């Protein structure tokens, strides 16, 4: 199955694919940021592959000067009972990624979580708000520079009497 997917993607999106990695039969494909929607659309609609379910979208902070952030998409095909992983690399000074909500509705909340925790902005997302932290919070807690105990005073407590 892995070979089949690689073959298909290479014929259709030869310049979109940055790297392909196979480790213990798990397939990970790094895709160019601006082509992610195209690739996802193809993987979902292709009659043979049919990756019809998006299991998760999550962010990663590598804390390095180049390509600091990463967005990881976990896909599952109900027809083939098969999983793959797509990755997109994001620069710190251009922290925009096209949203895949137009391909899978289920990306909505997962992308909101990645936005809340890492501050990654998903373009064309229908409702990009924080999902866990309170509305007025100004930081993104899973970024590496955020201190474990938070920033004092950033989350208000109710008054005591």
């Amino acid at each position, binding site marked *: 199955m892995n070979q089949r997917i690689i073959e298909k993607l290479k014929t259709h999106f030869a310049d979109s694919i940055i790297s392909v990695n196979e480790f213990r039969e798990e397939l990970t494909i790094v895709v160019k940021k601006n082509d992610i929607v195209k690739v996802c659309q193809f993987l979902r609609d292709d009659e043979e592959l049919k990756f019809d379910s998006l299991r998760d979208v999550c962010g990663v902070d590598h804390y390095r000067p180049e390509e600091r952030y990463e967005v990881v998409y976990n896909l599952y095909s109900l027809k083939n009972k098969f999983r793959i992983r797509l990755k997109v690399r994001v620069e710190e000074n251009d922290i925009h990624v096209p949203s895949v909500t137009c391909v899978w509705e289920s990306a909505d909340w997962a992308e909101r979580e990645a936005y809340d925790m890492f501050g990654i902005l998903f373009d064309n997302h229908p409702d990009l708000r924080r999902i*866990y*932290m*309170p509305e007025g919070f100004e930081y993104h*807690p899973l970024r590496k520079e*955020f*201190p*474990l*105990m*938070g*920033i004092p005073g950033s*989350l*208000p*407590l*109710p*008054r*005591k*009497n």
Partner: protein
Amino acid sequence: MADFSDLLVFTKLDELIKFARKNSLWPMPMGISCCAIEMMAFAGPRFDVSRFGSEAFRFSPRQSDLMIVAGTVTYKMSHVVRKIYDQMPDPKWVIAMGACTSSGGMYRSYSVVQGIDQFIPVDVYVAGCPPRPDNLLKGLMEIQKKIARGEKPGQKEKIYIEETFQV
């Protein structure tokens, strides 16, 4: 004239009110996470809190006078806990059940309040993760003793219930 002396009990009104209050503490179950499971056991037939007159768990704060905070209180939730506390009629008592509620517990992180006494007055702290239901019963009995002594809620020294293990 008939003799009623063995039928009547004479007492002070204060004592009568204290007796009534301490034997009908109605808890507000502020069950926010896993400790709430032990709080349910405390209400159930095995540990049977109705022996102490507290079996009537009220989900309306306006009908309860003891708040059992059982679980991890995040900053986002703290406003809700405080609001519910404010809605309870006086005199009201608070038990901080479990490590999370008393001190943040194992969640030493940006999102969890490191002890609910930062925003509401606590009367009894019950240790454990989660505390055994019998320790929570002991916490309840300490509140009853405080009422019997005529203390005001949230003022005199705090009571700490240590963890015990059943062998």
